[in-house]
């Protein structure tokens, strides 16, 4: 895979066109959307952006390293649940829950005849520990799964099926263990974060900007990983795994790392989702949401970091507006999108941009957006597309 040579004005891990792309996205999210959308719609965008974290993780994991995980909803859910547990404990203070048989525990535990806070919930009395848990619990889980599988050289299709099974297992477990997890309704009725009411419009706007800030930080992290030596090994591994192994690299460890990174990114998205939407439920964990998250990435372009963000926004926007006006048509649309993105434009929106728009924009910007050079010796499995700016 070609990236531009270090001599072409590249002093930093971002190439000029990447910086332009990120700046355009930042302006769009920070200035244009808040000014043009009302509060209600802006909160929708905020919700979509939390899925963009997952899409970002999938670009690294699936697009660059070639590991398709159909269980990213698990990590999104774990992050979301960690945050929801903290908020729920704060909402169920002794004063708020006087009428329960056991005051001071979440209401659904009281309904399920649990009389003291389970050990699993204890750490979530502390915000610092909660934030650590949001990032580390999913990473640890990903580590266990990834280590067990990649060390035995399980990959590709089998990995996808097993991660999908994990998503199914976690959903059934959450729904079944109502007393500990809130069951099918999830954890609802979240009120304050350290005394700050998160349900007001002002708070939601602030949370939107926090979410945008975190997303941009994560995008920078993704670019850093992509341009580092690690990123190049990931791509090499995807294209010719055996050659990388014979060159002396421990392929499994790199895979485990990128899988854990994707898990943590998804979990940050999940935590932001809980904060902005005000609840978390198993319907964001299972097979269907997990595979929908893959389609966001595929629509945006599995090789494009910024493309995945736009893909997420676009698919979700289409979903909301379609299901408002023609609820029956949405599944046709989504299904058609799955098929079209695979058969017709496998590199997603970013691929279309690079083929049709970027070459014409090139001359306008003094050649910063160079025409994508088709790389000669690439696997047919993943059509080559050097990531040029979106």
């Amino acid at each position, binding site marked *: 895979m070609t990236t531009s040579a270090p001599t072409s004005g590249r002093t930093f891990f971002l190439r000029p066109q990447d910086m332009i792309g990120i700046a355009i996205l930042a302006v769009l999210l920070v200035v244009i959307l808040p000014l043009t959308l009302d509060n209600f719609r802006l909160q929708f965008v905020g919700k979509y952006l939390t899925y963009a974290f997952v899409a970002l993780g999938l670009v690294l994991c699936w697009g660059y390293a070639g590991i*398709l995980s*159909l269980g990213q909803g698990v990590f999104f859910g774990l992050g979301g649940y960690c945050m929801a547990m903290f908020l729920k404990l704060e909402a169920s203070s002794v004063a708020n829950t006087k009428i329960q048989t056991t005051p001071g525990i979440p209401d659904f535990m009281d309904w399920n005849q649990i009389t003291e806070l389970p050990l699993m919930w204890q750490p979530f009395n502390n915000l610092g520990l909660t934030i650590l848990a949001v990032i580390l619990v999913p990473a640890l889980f990903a580590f266990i*799964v990834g280590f*067990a*599988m990649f060390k*035995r*050289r*399980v990959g*590709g*299709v*089998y990995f*996808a*099926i*097993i991660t*999908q*099974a*994990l998503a*199914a*297992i976690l959903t*059934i*477990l959450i*729904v*079944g263990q109502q007393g500990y997890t809130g069951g099918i309704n999830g954890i609802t009725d979240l009120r304050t974060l350290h005394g700050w009411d998160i349900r007001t419009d002002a708070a939601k706007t602030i949370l939107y900007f926090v979410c945008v800030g975190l997303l941009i930080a994560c995008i920078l992290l993704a670019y850093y990983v992509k341009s580092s030596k690690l990123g190049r090994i990931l791509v090499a591994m995807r294209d010719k795994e055996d050659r990388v192994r014979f060159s002396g690299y421990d392929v499994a460890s790199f895979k485990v790392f990128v899988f854990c990174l994707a898990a943590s990114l998804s979990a940050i998205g999940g935590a932001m989702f809980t904060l902005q939407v005000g609840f978390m439920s198993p319907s964001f964990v299972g*097979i269907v949401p997990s*595979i929908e998250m*893959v*389609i966001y990435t*595929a629509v945006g372009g599995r090789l494009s970091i910024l493309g995945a963000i736009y893909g997420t926004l676009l698919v979700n926007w289409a979903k909301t507006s379609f299901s408002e006006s023609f609820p*029956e048509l949405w*599944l*046709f649309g*989504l*299904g*058609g*999108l*799955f*098929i079209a*993105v*695979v*058969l017709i434009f*496998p590199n997603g929106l970013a691929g279309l941009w690079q083929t049709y728009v970027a070459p014409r924009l090139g001359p306008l910007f003094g050649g910063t957006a160079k025409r994508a050079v088709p790389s000669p010796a690439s696997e*047919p*499995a993943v059509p080559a597309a050097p990531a040029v700016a979106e």
Partner: protein
Amino acid sequence: MFSDYSLAELSSIFLMQGFAGLILFSVFVLMALGLAIIFGQMGVINMAHGEFMILGAYVTYFTSQLFLNYLPSLFGIYFFIAMILAFLASGALGMATEWLMIRHLYKRPLDTLLATWGLSLILQQVYRSVFGPREVGVELPSWMMGSLPVTEVVEVQINGLFVMGLTIAITVAVALLMYKSSWGKQVRAVVQNRVMAGAVGINTEKVDRYTFGLGCGIAGVAGSAFTMIGSTGPTSGQLYIVDTFLVVVFGGAQSLLGTIASAFTISQAQSTMEFFLSGSMAKVLTLLGVVVILMLRPQGLFVIKVRR
């Protein structure tokens, strides 16, 4: 958990749950057979497999309605005709899918997964629009109702027995087709070495299309059998797809014997545990067990040694 029951009670519990497990086993085997051919032999991940099954179930439902209204005297045998129609309908849809979609994707197995998932969403919505969101059930002919007593406390339902018999018959037929007929030989040759198979004069594209059609057709028959023991809704197929994939992977993707053995293990484990634990915990423990075993032994239970 066993201490509350006497030994005699325990043995009947195991018998009853064992029989319930055998019905689940039949459904698993019927679904997994088609998938084992499509995934195990062709390497295509067909996420719409459940929807092909449901198509068979709806065809059976309609045939039963037709017989009920126009040919009530022949109602006793409608099921056999429905089964053939279900096979033809699902098989035809499968061949159309292969021609329009799958054949462009043989080199990209992960993408077949996404594309067939899209197909499954579209089919679900089609079923919902055409047949309505409610679940439908068929009426059983009178000879299939009731149950046979085995001991004083244990009895087995006739429809369950019938489904089991059907499963055995179809499994034997598929095994004969794959391992004894010349067509099965061609399929296995294409799977092992596509280029060489083409070079010796096998029409690989045609073999692919018919193999995919056969897998989908068996799914249709599975749906047909499924109506005997449960009702059918637009999303019923999706409930089984993960279990079925685990069955196929757990058995060792290329071995029919492995598929049957793993369907047996998974269904028996699940239905036995269901009696002692809640249904959801039984399912969690079963799936988790399978996933852990797959992590330790990724190639599955049975492996066919092939030089690559």
